[in-house]
């Protein structure tokens, strides 16, 4: 099982273009067995812990199953997670492209879990490490227990300087993650 946190740049690219690495990764998340199909998901759902952890679920009962997907996707679960703060940022940036993209619908279609807004207190540990405007992204990725923070922003996030400072999570581009998981697929948990 892989848990990935999408930042604004990846959701933007994935929603806007159907041919990039971001869209492919979103497709893999979409076709992974649902969070609610797994033991962890069911126990989390039943215990109501998803609320305590600040998760909001736009699509608690995704209709899709494994139909039409290859065996690799069936075996390797990828959960896509983001935060409401990232969604607000995305809405703001998509506006520039004058595109009529229904973010809520796409979030549902790709079964992305949305964590509630990142608060000022939650970004406190990262204030000395990274630029103010990127703190919520790193905080969101770590708070949701993701192994990977997926970003296309090389200038502010996916660079050696930041990777040396942020060691709790792996910062990669969609292309880098796809290369990694397809060349040496993770073990099924």
């Amino acid at each position, binding site marked *: 099982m892989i848990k990935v946190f999408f930042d604004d740049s990846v959701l933007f690219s994935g929603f806007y*273009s159907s041919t*990039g690495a971001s869209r492919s990764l979103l497709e893999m998340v979409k076709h992974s067995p649902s969070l609610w199909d797994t033991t962890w998901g069911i126990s989390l759902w039943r215990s109501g812990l998803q609320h305590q952890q600040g998760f909001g679920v736009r699509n608690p009962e995704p209709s899709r199953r494994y139909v039409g997907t290859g065996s690799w996707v069936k075996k390797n679960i990828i959960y896509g997670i983001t935060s409401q703060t990232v969604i607000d940022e995305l809405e703001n940036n998509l506006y520039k492209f004058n595109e009529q993209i229904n973010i809520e619908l796409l979030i549902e279609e790709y079964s992305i879990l949305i964590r509630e807004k990142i608060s000022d207190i939650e*970004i406190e540990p990262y204030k000395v490490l990274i630029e103010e405007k990127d703190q919520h992204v790193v905080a969101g990725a770590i708070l949701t227990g993701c192994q990977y923070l997926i970003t296309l922003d090389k200038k502010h996030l996916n660079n050696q300087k930041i990777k040396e400072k942020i060691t709790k999570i792996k910062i990669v581009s969609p292309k880098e993650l796809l290369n990694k998981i397809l060349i040496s697929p993770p073990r099924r948990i």
Partner: protein
Amino acid sequence: MQITTNQQEEWLKILTKGMVTIPKSWRKELGIEEGKMVKAKKIANQIIIEPMEKPVSYRTYSQKELQQFLKDDRLPKKLEKKLAKVLK
């Protein structure tokens, strides 16, 4: 009920028991939701209402940066072929 002067200033009508409606756009921007607590301060002849949790700032990318993301996101042929197998 509200007479708009500019984005940061509004005239609000005081309702029964001193209730006022904070404009929706301000509530959204500051993350003020029903049931949440806010801090109210009286300073001289002013009343300041602050959300308990301050909203965090986020990045606004330029059109050029967004175009660059799309360019950087293009799949190399080799990876494209692998993905076609995985997602077929």
